[in-house]
């Protein structure tokens, strides 16, 4: 039993170690392609950014971290605020941008 539990723990830890980390934000005022473009360009310039996804309909911005790097929610929030928009919710999730995108598409 003990061995089984240790095995499961190790497997779970291994999966988590390779899981992508992203910051997901709800943004007010983001209504047009130009808004999305400005936000995407700014966030892509951050050194720890792997990928960015913007969903205009659901007002969601997702930023995926490069492997082994950490995203700073405050920095990302400041970039969006500097671009002229309001961040109303921000959270770190263990999903890649592709996974978030797929989930968003599924909601539509």
């Amino acid at each position: 039993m003990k061995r089984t539990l240790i095995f499961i723990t190790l497997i779970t830890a291994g999966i988590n170690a390779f899981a992508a980390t992203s910051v997901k934000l709800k943004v007010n005022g983001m209504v047009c392609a130009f808004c999305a473009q400005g936000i995407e360009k700014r966030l892509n310039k951050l050194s720890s950014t792997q990928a960015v996804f913007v969903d205009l309909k659901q007002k969601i911005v997702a930023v995926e971290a490069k492997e082994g790097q950490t995203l700073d929610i405050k920095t990302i929030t400041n970039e969006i605020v500097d671009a002229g928009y309001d961040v109303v919710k921000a959270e770190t999730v263990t999903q890649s941008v592709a996974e978030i995108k797929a989930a968003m598409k599924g909601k539509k």
Partner: protein
Amino acid sequence: MKKFLLSICLVCTPLSVHAGPMGFKNSVMSMGDFSANWREGFANYAFTPRDAVGAEALWMRSDNKQRVRELKEITYTRLLSRWNMPEAQANIWLVAGGGIVTGNDFADTQTIITPGLQLDYETTRVYLASNARLYRAKNLNHDYASIRAGFSFYEVDYDQTQPWLILEARRMRGLSDRTEITPLLRLIHNRYFVELGVNNSQQTRFNFMYIF
């Protein structure tokens, strides 16, 4: 707040072919507005999220094709206020310029100033804007006003092409006695923006915008 901003947009007056007269910080925005009596080219650089400097060239002709004005100016654009709402955005912009104007019915080049205000309200499906701009030089008054309202046919993801139908009414003092009314088909795709329409004088109108 939404109703208040909508009221302002509807009773005040506009210009730009797009939601805002400047792009995001460190971007260059270029735009053009072309018809038989109006040819305008404009570009500006956003050096902060709220400020941009640029240059504009404008050629205008009276309805009877007798009088022509050519204007070249340096512009300053400032986002005065922005309201970010869950499903909408509203803005007040200052667009001001100073430069020179020439005409075929007066001698010499004159200095011209062109202060103006733009108000806009936009959702992913609705667009409203009004713009007022003064074009003043010695013995010249070509004050300009426009209002735009439109809707998109459907929502899209931002990397897909979105079609809009926009109706614009605009008027300029001193060169035209009639209000120009133009229904325009607007297409937005990523950083591309084009509008094509025919005004109430049966003249073709073409607008574009691109952000670098």
